[in-house]
């Protein structure tokens, strides 16, 4: 399948609103037409052509469409907004709000991504080879619905509030995560393979958080349940053993926190609650 390639021509010093760049909008379009698309660079409207060198071709079929973006997009927002199919690959920093409200398809970021990666995501897959910012899969301000489906894979680290208000779907972070993974979570699964800075699952009412690395302490509003030898994340088995906590009781929640025993000797105190 052939790719539509957008190469950034110059440094951008203002916020760049690229919600138009998605397979849904660009598939089947001629590059001339694409070049005429207008986006906001700060308070100016500019043609896509003046920002990017546009090469290649966008496939007519949405599912076959591949868009490659080359350059530092760290000041860009909303690449892949509401996309429902096809592939976007960013070679460089992906910017803020990559894949917001995405419904299907795939986004690959070869580099880091900014905050609000996959916010309000409903379906599809996002893979980030570097690290992601804060609020991965977050809900928009004031609402109680974040990610409702799909998969986010971050090879590096993620910031704080990863998976906040998540209702469904999967987030896997290979590196470490900031504070509050799964805050206010209602459902879905978060797996953090590295360390977590703390307060995992704060205010969660449902869902599952698996922490393979170190967690400084468990919030006092969680109840120790059991020790399990392994658990499932998506289709995979993750080997433990894990301390399992339920909570957040403050919200009458029934979420599950799996914390790897071997990485967290400081939590040994909870073993006294084990029924012998």
């Amino acid at each position, binding site marked *: 399948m052939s790719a539509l390639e957008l190469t950034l021509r110059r440094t951008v010093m203002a916020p760049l609103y690229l919600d138009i760049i998605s397979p849904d909008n660009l598939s089947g379009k001629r590059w001339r037409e694409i070049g005429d698309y207008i986006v906001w660079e700060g308070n100016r409207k500019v043609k896509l052509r003046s920002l990017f060198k546009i090469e290649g071709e966008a496939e007519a079929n949405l599912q076959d469409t591949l868009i490659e973006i080359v350059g530092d997009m760290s000041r860009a927002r909303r690449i892949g907004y509401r996309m429902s199919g096809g592939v976007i690959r960013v070679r460089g920093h992906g910017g803020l709000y990559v894949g917001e409200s995405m419904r299907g398809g795939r986004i690959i970021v070869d580099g880091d991504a900014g905050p609000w990666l996959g916010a309000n995501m409903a379906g599809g897959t996002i893979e980030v080879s570097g690290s992601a910012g804060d609020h991965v899969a977050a809900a928009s301000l004031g609402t109680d619905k974040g990610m409702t489906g799909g998969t986010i894979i971050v090879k590096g680290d993620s910031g704080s509030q990863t998976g906040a208000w998540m209702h469904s779907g999967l987030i896997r972070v290979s590196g470490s995560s900031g504070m*509050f993974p799964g805050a206010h979570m209602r459902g879905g699964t978060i797996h953090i393979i590295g360390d977590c800075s703390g307060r995992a699952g704060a205010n969660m009412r449902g869902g599952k958080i698996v922490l393979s690395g170190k967690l400084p302490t468990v919030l006092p509003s969680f109840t120790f349940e059991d020790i399990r030898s392994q658990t499932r994340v998506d289709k995979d088995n993750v080997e433990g053993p894990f301390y399992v906590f339920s909570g957040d009781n403050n919200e009458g929640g029934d979420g599950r926190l799996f914390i790897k025993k071997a990485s967290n000797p400081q939590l040994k105190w909870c073993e006294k609650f084990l029924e012998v």
Partner: protein
Amino acid sequence: MGLEESTFRDVVCTVCGCCCDHLEVTVKEDTVVKVKNACAMSTSKLLNYMNERIMKPMIRRRGRLSGCSYRDAVDAAAKILLKSRSPLLYGWSLTSCEAVEVGVELAEEVGGFIDNTTSTCHGPTILGVHEIGESSSTLGEVRHRADLIIYWGCNPIHAHPLHMSRYTLLSKGRFRKSRSERTLIVVDVRRTDTAKMADMFIQVEPNKDYELISALRAAVRGDEIEQDEVGGVPTDLIEEVAEMLISCDFGALFFGLGLTMSPGKSENVDAALSLVRDLNSKTKFVIIPMRGHFNVNGANNVMTWMTGYPYAIDFTRGFPYYNPGETSAVDLLARGECDSALIVASDPVSNFPYKATCNLTSIPLITIDPHITPTVLCSDVVFPSALVGIETSGTVYRMDGVPLVARKLVEPPRNIRSDIEILRDILRRYRNLKRLGR
């Protein structure tokens, strides 16, 4: 105003969010000579407001700031904004609501970002309110009814010196006549001067407020806490405090930057708001943030009614968009996304983290301020302005949203204009230049 000595009563103070309105200020020959009823900060401001004043507009030429005509400064400012793709308009808490209104109009016209100092004081509080809401009241309710008062992560003795005597612990209310009818709990990482007045002081480990509030919420629900201590506080004590919270008639929780500035930020506030919300199913409880900076609450209010959002508003695309963390001053600067800035009545160069400040000083910078500040020293265009509540009047909002008028007491120095005039002139010039195609 004349040579006679005259005394103004019921003057509204312009220092902190208490907006005490019982000051007596004596003025002679357009100078404040005596201040009564005020706290140390307020007295210092009223007696020293003429120190280090900027006396005329300045423009940077060949690396140096030098005096210029007002017209030239307005022209230079308008041209900077006209060229700019994403200007940042920041400050707004030490000025009047009327000036903020013009500021929002200017931000909309130039297609920029407008943020006020909320983003670096109680911004996280507002983010918490978006999620939880708040059970709150005016300060008078606390004065009349509260039998339990909590100061959490704040130190009113130093930051809001008259808060206790006018509104809380030491005030005389209809249903609570004296100190002995109230209980004070202070939660802090330090044994502050406020803590010394408390009936119960709870010393929490730094950055453990969230854990402690979670434990308190659990204890208020009646859940068992499995850990022996939380954040350095023994579980027994937490349970005792929870019992105090439940059994009071009317509790008031005041919190400060100890919650908003520690890691967790909005989530810390979220927890405190949730605690108070939960408590309302058992008794009456209110929560009030200790807003610090004079009229910062007014700036929030004006921006909210004009745009729907309290701070960190993005007008670049011609409509208001809001997302602190994306559209707030420190983040915009840290990412290097602004190409000019207009600072009104604030000193970000002193207050912003180093990296953000570096980006601020490397773009064209316009400052409107009565005094010489580090921000002024780094600016390209400087407007001296009159002080609201001393040299010009204006509406201000107390921390609990009670609006007051801060009155003019003396004439400003010659040729020094109010923020409103300056902003209007910049706006007018900007529109003219735009119409002329610059």
